[in-house]
């Protein structure tokens, strides 16, 4: 009884803190439609800052609390809204996810930069550890009582705020219609900023309260993942209801506490189970709770755009990629080759995101976790030989990929009626569950019937890692670095071409139709179920293949190689590069696999070599770790991705072969210079990127017919509105309408003459600028 009481109180306290965190999450999601993945990171920053102020600067506790909770928390939230979140109107769900994920990663790096993770930091409970009271015989610290009391007060306070204050009612009104709120004389911007300030305050409060309860040691990662416990509680309230969120949080807290108390000692996995409990709850709740129905009325026109390449150009690009990689191979030393290979395997995983998110508009926040499944399968059934001579077999990879596809189906099947964010959360729950539970399974179990010992993720002797030997198919042996690199590139190119072909097929068009409007797609007789299931399986298979290749490139993998943070940052960089493009996947994969690691290590090298400016270079190195997050945050301004802009800029060069040939020649010279060691490899890389970036600009500057082309680039429905109505445009319109051939020669001449006349008047006040050509044809 005594044990039960102690753990019940502990569970209630834990649940109360979860509830505080989760209500902040619900608050911001409802007022701005943004699900804040950085909520836990805000809590973490708050807790670290509290530690710094309280113990670093030695400020008394009440003053430190006022500074952190009263000033820092609300200020951070308000600024986040004003600087970043406000710009996310009319963007796709994935863009919003990516921006907050970027924010989360950025805050993590930032805290590591300011507060060295190697140092131990402890936060003492309020009034000390010894300050305890006895409740029915159980010892409860004052801190726990304060935490519980605060949770109750916050719950009551929020209730009063939302129902008894006009600004609270207005906040609830903003969920329905911010425009109407404005017509009622309220300022929706101010209301949204306030809600973000409150959300951030609640996050920081949860962070400060939680640390002493969960042991007192301050850890950035575990505090950031607090958000996952909050997710589960918030989803329990369907991301809307705060009372239900509170109930969900209490259930979670109690369950975690009871697992800790009552699980038998023989259950070695009990502690892993406790850690992944919120994820399991999240998954179950997502599946059980009713979801919104399909909505067809408001087809949101998002700001994301994408060009669609033809299969022919994809084949050319794929071949070019292989050639470029083979050429670059000549410049690289062995360690570079391994790094680039790793990047290429990441790019293959990123392809699964292009298919799933870019084409079909569904979300998978745990792409790399699917790679773990294929890795495990191919480790257990597809390795031949021993020691250095051991090799993976094609058979193992094929079965691994198939199993991953099946697991993908099993994960997504119950989640199929979920859409967008909910599906994303379900995959995230699965991913975290996999890393916390399945990949931690390193102790051998005795399997009852066949009496062999078996563990899922262990290379033997309880070591929590797997050694994945390189693949050998007949004469092709990936033991050789160059062969591996070229093979990975070819795999990427073939899959990429396949994806483009798929996108151009009727299946691809059906996927995009589903992305744009599930309701319209369903009324056209598409089976959304079949489409989603098939695309999810395909995508999981691609991720599985990429994952196995990644494991081979790494040689030996630990659960950390499949962490959810890796999946999230891969998704982020792919969206930054352009989620709807195969080349976006290439760029995103290479960036997350190699790019930033290379830049950071370069700066560290420079810092150690040049002692006098050591400070500057190590600052740059630290700054470079934050850069990906900054780029990710910037995606709100350019949600189509950078590849999109790049393609657009090169589009104008299509009719300028001389500029292209010139650029190619310069690049060839650079390559030869670098090959003969006249030019350093870094110089080659820098000059090449400068050339690639500025070539379109050169093309534009040197183009005599630039204005003409710009006029022709205006979409036809806008022609004549923003630009003069020229002869060429009139001919273009006639051609687009298909009436050019119908016009008899003399009419054609008259129509041309009319065109010239209105050109002469040359202003924008013409009546019916568009009707003229059509009217001529009709009369």
């Amino acid at each position, binding site marked *: 009884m005594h044990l039960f009481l102690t753990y019940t109180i502990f569970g209630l306290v834990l649940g109360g803190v979860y509830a505080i965190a989760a209500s902040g999450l619900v608050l911001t999601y409802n007022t701005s439609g943004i699900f804040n993945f950085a909520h836990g990171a805000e809590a973490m920053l708050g807790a670290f800052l509290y530690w710094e102020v309280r113990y670093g600067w030695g400020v008394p506790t009440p003053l430190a609390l006022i500074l952190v909770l009263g000033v820092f928390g609300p200020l951070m939230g308000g600024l986040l809204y004003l600087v970043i979140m406000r710009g996310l109107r009319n963007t796709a769900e994935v863009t919003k996810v990516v921006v907050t994920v970027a924010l989360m990663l950025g805050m993590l790096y930032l805290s590591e930069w300011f507060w060295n993770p190697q140092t131990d930091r402890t936060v003492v409970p309020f009034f000390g550890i010894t300050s305890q009271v006895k409740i029915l015989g159980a010892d409860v610290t004052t801190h726990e009582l304060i935490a519980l009391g605060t949770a109750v007060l916050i719950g009551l306070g929020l209730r009063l705020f939302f129902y008894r204050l006009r600004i609270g009612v207005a906040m609830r*009104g903003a969920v*329905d219609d911010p425009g109407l709120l404005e017509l009622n004389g309220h300022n929706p911007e101010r209301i949204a900023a306030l809600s973000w300030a409150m959300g951030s305050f609640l996050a920081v409060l949860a962070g400060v309260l939680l640390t002493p309860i969960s042991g007192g040691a301050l850890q950035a990662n575990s505090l950031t993942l607090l958000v996952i416990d909050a997710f589960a509680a918030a989803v329990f309230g369907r991301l809307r209801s705060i009372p239900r969120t509170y109930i969900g949080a209490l259930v979670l807290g109690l369950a975690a506490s009871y697992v800790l108390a009552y699980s038998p000692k023989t259950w070695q996995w009990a502690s892993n189970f406790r850690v992944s409990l919120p994820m399991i709850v999240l998954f179950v709740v997502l599946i059980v709770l009713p979801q919104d129905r399909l909505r067809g009325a408001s087809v949101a026109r998002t700001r994301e755009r994408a060009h669609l390449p033809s299969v022919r150009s994809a084949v050319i690009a794929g071949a070019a990629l292989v050639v470029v990689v083979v050429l670059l191979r000549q410049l690289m030393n062995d360690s570079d080759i391994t790094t680039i290979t790793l990047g290429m395997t990441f790019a293959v995983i990123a392809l699964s995101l292009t298919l799933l998110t870019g084409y079909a508009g569904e979300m998978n926040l745990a792409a790399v976790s699917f790679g773990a499944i294929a890795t495990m399968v191919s480790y257990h059934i597809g390795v031949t030989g021993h020691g250095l001579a051991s090799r993976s077999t094609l058979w193992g990879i094929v079965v691994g990929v198939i199993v991953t596809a099946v697991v993908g189906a099993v994960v997504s099947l119950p989640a199929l009626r979920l859409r967008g964010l909910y599906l994303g959360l379900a995959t995230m729950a699965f991913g975290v569950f996999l890393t916390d539970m399945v990949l931690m399974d390193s102790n051998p179990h005795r399997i009852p019937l066949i009496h062999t010992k078996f563990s899922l993720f262990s290379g033997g002797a309880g070591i929590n890692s797997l050694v994945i030997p390189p693949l050998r198919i007949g004469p092709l042996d990936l033991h050789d670095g160059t062969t591996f690199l070229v093979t990975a590139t070819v795999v990427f190119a073939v899959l990429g071409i396949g994806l483009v072909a798929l996108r151009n097929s009727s299946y691809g068009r059906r996927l995009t139709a589903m992305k744009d409007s599930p309701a319209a797609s369903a009324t056209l007789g598409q089976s959304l179920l079949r489409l989603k299931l098939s695309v999810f399986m395909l995508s999981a298979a691609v991720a599985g293949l990429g994952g196995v290749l990644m494991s081979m490139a790494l040689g030996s993998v630990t659960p950390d190689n499949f962490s959810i943070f890796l999946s999230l940052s891969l998704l982020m960089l792919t969206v930054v590069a352009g989620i709807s493009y195969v080349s976006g996947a290439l760029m995103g994969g290479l960036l997350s696999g190699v790019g930033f690691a290379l830049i950071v290590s370069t700066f560290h090298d420079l810092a150690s070599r040049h002692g006098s400016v050591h400070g500057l270079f190590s600052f740059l190195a630290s700054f470079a770790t934050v850069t990906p997050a900054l780029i990710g945050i910037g995606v709100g301004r350019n949600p189509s991705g950078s590849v999109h802009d790049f393609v657009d800029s090169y589009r104008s060069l299509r009719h300028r072969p001389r500029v292209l040939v010139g650029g190619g020649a310069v690049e060839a010279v650079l390559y030869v210079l670098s090959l003969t060691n006249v030019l350093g490899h870094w110089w080659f890389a820098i000059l090449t990127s400068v050339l690639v970036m500025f070539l379109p600009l050169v093309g534009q500057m040197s183009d005599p017919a630039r204005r003409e082309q710009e006029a022709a680039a205006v979409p036809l*429905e806008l022609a004549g509105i923003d630009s003069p109505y020229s002869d060429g445009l009139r001919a273009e319109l006639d051609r687009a309408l298909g009436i050019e051939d119908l016009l008899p020669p003399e009419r054609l001449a008259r129509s041309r003459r009319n065109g010239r006349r209105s050109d002469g008047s040359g202003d924008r006040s013409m009546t019916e600028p568009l009707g003229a050509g059509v009217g001529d044809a009709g009369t």
Partner: protein
Amino acid sequence: MTAPVTDDGRPIEGGAEPILELVGVRAGYGAIEVLHGVDLVVPRGSLVALLGPNGGGKTTTLRVCSGLLRVASGELRVAGRTVNGAAAHDLARVGVCSVPEGRGIFPNLTVRENLWLATGTGVARDRVESVAFDRFPRLGERRNQLAGTMSGGEQQMLAIARALATEPVVLILDELSMGLAPLVVSALYETVAELASSGISVLVAEQFAKTVLPIAQSAAIMLHGRVVRVGEPAAVEEELASAYLGG
């Protein structure tokens, strides 16, 4: 087709100064311009009907008037003062009350909470409630019900109640009749006529001209983002058919 009338802004009855005025207003969404120079005058104390087929720019014009959409060029004047770029909530506070297309209510708030939010313009809460419940007793019966669960007519009553209670200078109504039974529509327009006769200036956009022309003092036809005709309701009615059919 009739050439655009270049009305120089003289109100039909003469005498009353314009309370709401659009002069050569261009506006649109992103790169797409919808209004290509709209001239429109709402004289003080009169009811102006804005007619025309779908896609003519009526709703966009009203969005400009209420401040939800920025003027790209031209001028928006309220009571003779240029208010280009003023935010919608500022315009609401100086007395421009706008009931948007569909239902101008918050479906997930109760009737009382909806009315409470109407006090954003500076009216006392008691006053809003007493005016609303006196004029529409049905709302009083349902004061604690979620607004979204009421019938379409009741929702529109709630939307109009805001206009009644906050005593605006200009009332802007968009497609009041949308999705409602004809009987409900005529009852609503009776209220609008009362409001207009009490001295509030009203601008109404409506696809179904017949419902609004009898109570209007003047009417304007919008086509392809321009006001192509302004005049007495009776005169405008005759030209409507040709405007709709693209004459």
